[in-house]
C-alpha cells in the first residue's frame, strides 16, 4: 500500500481523489446533499404546512399561495412534497441501517465460526431470498400495521441477506490471511479478532451495499405507499403523493400533483446509485494503481 511519492500515502485521500474523478458520483453527491438540505431545512425557515386543510381550496390548481396546488381536502402539495422527502430519505436510511445491523454480524459469525452455525445462517439467507421481498413486506405490514416505524422495521428485516452474504464471503477469505493467523496464534480472543481484524476489512463492500440498498429501500417504500399499504396520510411520503394518482382524474388531468414526487424519487435514487457506483470504483482495491 505504501506509495513511492514523497507525500505519505493516505487511503482516504486516495479514495476521495478516485471518487471525485467519477463525474456521475460527484454530481450524485452534490444533488443528494442539496436535496437533503432542502427537505431538512426548508420547513424550518419557511412556514410551509403539509397537514392543515384549507377548506376554501380543495384540489386547487398551482398558484402563488400553493405552488403545486392542493389535494382533495385542501392540504398544500408543495409542503407535502418537501415533508415526503424527509420521510422517504429517513425510511430508506434507517431501514438499511437495520438490515446492516442484522446482516453484518450474521455474516461475520457464519464466516468465522464455519460449521453448523455457518450452515444455519447461510440456509437462513436462502430462505429469506426465496421470498420476493415486496410480497413478504406487504404481508408483514398487513400484520404489523402501516406506521412509519413498522414500515421501516419490516423493510429493514427483509433486506439483510445481501449484507450477510457479502460479509460472509469476505470473512471466509480474510480469516485465511497471515495476519489473522498471527493474531490467532498470539492468543487474541475471538471477539476482538472478529471486530478488530476481520470487520474493518469488510468496510468497503458494506459501504457500497449500503448505498445500493438505501436506493432500493426508498423505491420499496414508495411502491408500498403508492399502493396504499405503506405510510398513510396525514403523514406525507413521495409514495403516498403518487397514490393520489390512483384516481384516474388526478392521473390524467392533474399531473402536477404526482409528477414532481416521481421525479424527485428518480433523482434521489439515481444520485444514490451513482454514489454507490463511484464508491465501488474508488474503494475497490483491484482498480488501485
Amino acid at each position, binding site marked *: 500500500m505504501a506509495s513511492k511519492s514523497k507525500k505519505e500515502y493516505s487511503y482516504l485521500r486516495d479514495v476521495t481523489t478516485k471518487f471525485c474523478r467519477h463525474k456521475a458520483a460527484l454530481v450524485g453527491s452534490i444533488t443528494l446533499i442539496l436535496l437533503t438540505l432542502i427537505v431538512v431545512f426548508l420547513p424550518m425557515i419557511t412556514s410551509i404546512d403539509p397537514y392543515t386543510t384549507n377548506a376554501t381550496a380543495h384540489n386547487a390548481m398551482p398558484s402563488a399561495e400553493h405552488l403545486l396546488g392542493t389535494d382533495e381536502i385542501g392540504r398544500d402539495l408543495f409542503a407535502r412534497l418537501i415533508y415526503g422527502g424527509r420521510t422517504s430519505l429517513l425510511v430508506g436510511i434507517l431501514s438499511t441501517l437495520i438490515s446492516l445491523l442484522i446482516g453484518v454480524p450474521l455474516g461475520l459469525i457464519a464466516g468465522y465460526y464455519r460449521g453448523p452455525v455457518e450452515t444455519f445462517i447461510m440456509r437462513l439467507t436462502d430462505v429469506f431470498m426465496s421470498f420476493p421481498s415486496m410480497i413478504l413486506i406487504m404481508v408483514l405490514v398487513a400484520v404489523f400495521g402501516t406506521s412509519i416505524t413498522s414500515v421501516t422495521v419490516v423493510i429493514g428485516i427483509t433486506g439483510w441477506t445481501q449484507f450477510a452474504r457479502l460479509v460472509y464471503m469476505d470473512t471466509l477469505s480474510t480469516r485465511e490471511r497471515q495476519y489473522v493467523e498471527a493474531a490467532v496464534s498470539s492468543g487474541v480472543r475471538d471477539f476482538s479478532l472478529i471486530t478488530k481484524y476481520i470487520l474493518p476489512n469488510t468496510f468497503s463492500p458494506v459501504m457500497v451495499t449500503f448505498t445500493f440498498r438505501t436506493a432500493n429501500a426508498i423505491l420499496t417504500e*414508495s411502491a408500498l405507499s403508492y399502493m396504499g399499504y405503506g405510510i398513510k396520510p396525514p403523514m406525507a411520503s413521495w409514495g403516498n403523493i403518487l397514490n393520489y394518482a390512483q384516481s384516474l382524474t388526478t*392521473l390524467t388531468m392533474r399531473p402536477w400533483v404526482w409528477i414532481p414526487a416521481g421525479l424527485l424519487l428518480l433523482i434521489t435514487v439515481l444520485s444514490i446509485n451513482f454514489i454507490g457506483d463511484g464508491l465501488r470504483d474508488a474503494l475497490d482495491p483491484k482498480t488501485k494503481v
Partner: protein
Amino acid sequence: MGRYILKRLGISIIVFFGITILAYAITSMMPGTPMDFVVASNPNMSAEQIAALTEQYGLDKPLIVQYFSWLWQMLHGNLGYSYQTSQDVFQLIVAKLGPTLLLTVTSMVIALIIAIPLGILAAVKPKSGFDYISSAFAFIGNSLPGFFFGMILILLVSVKLNWLPMSGMYTMPDNHNFADLIRHLILPAFSLSLQQLGYFMRYMRSSMIETLGQDFIRTAKAKGLSRNSIIIKHALRNSINPIIVNIGAQIPFLIGGSVVIESLFSWPGIGKLLTTSIDARDYPVLMGITIFIAVAVLIGNLLVDIVCSLVDPRIRCVSEGGKKSGK
C-alpha cells in the same frame, strides 16, 4: 456432476422447510385466530360448540403439533380456504397464475432482447459515446420506479395519444381475442421490464468486457478472425452464462415488481389477488400466495442452477461459494 445436483437438491429441501417455518411463524403472528372467523360467521354458537370445533381443528394443541399438521396438509396441496369466498386457496392461486406468468415472462423477454445487444455494443467500445449513453440509460432504468414509468406511459400513450388501453387484460370480458390481449400487455410489460433492463444491460456489459480481456480472445484475434465472428462465436457464448444464472436470481424481484404493476394496470394476476386479500385481511390466501411463490422461486433457482451446471461446469464453483444475488 451427480454429487453437485444431489447437494443442491438437499439444500433446497432444507430451505423448503425453512420457508414453511418462517411462513408459519408469520401466520401465527397474524391477529385473530381461525376460530374468530368461524364465530363471526355464526354468532349463535355456544361455548361447547366452540370448544368442540377448536378441538376438531387442533387449535388446542401445542404450536409445534399444529405446525406439522399444517405442513402435512400443505404437502397434500391443501393451503386452506379463503375467509372471503371459502374457495380452496391453491385453486384460487392457480387460477391467477396465468396472467402473472404472461406478464413476468414477457417483460423478462423484453428486458433481455433489449439489454443483451445494447450491453454487447457498449462492451465492444467501452468509454465511447454510445457506452456513456447506454450506461446512463441503464442507470435511469434501475432508478426509475416501474410504476411511475407506467403512470407516465398511461398518461402519454393511453390518454394523450389513445394508442393502447390503460387497464385490464381484455376490452370485453367474454371476448378473448389475442390481438386485444397483446395490446393490453404492452404497457404493463414495458413498465415491469424497465428495472430488469437496466440491470441486465450493465451486467451484460461487464461480463462481456471481462470475457474480451481473456487469453482465448487474444488467440482468436491473433488467428485473424474478424471482430464480429470473435464477438458472436467466442465471446458471447462465454459471457452469456452468468446472465442466465442471474435470471433465476431476478425472479423474486420480477414477481415483487409485478404486484405493483398489476395494481396500476388492474392486471388480473397474483398481485391483484394479493392486494384484494390484504384489503380483506384474508390471511389464508395471503399465506398461500407467499408460500406458493417462495417455493416456485426455490424450484426455479434449483432448475436454473442445474441447467447451468450442465451447460458450463465452471458455474458450479460459483454457486458453491454463494451465488451472486440480484441487486
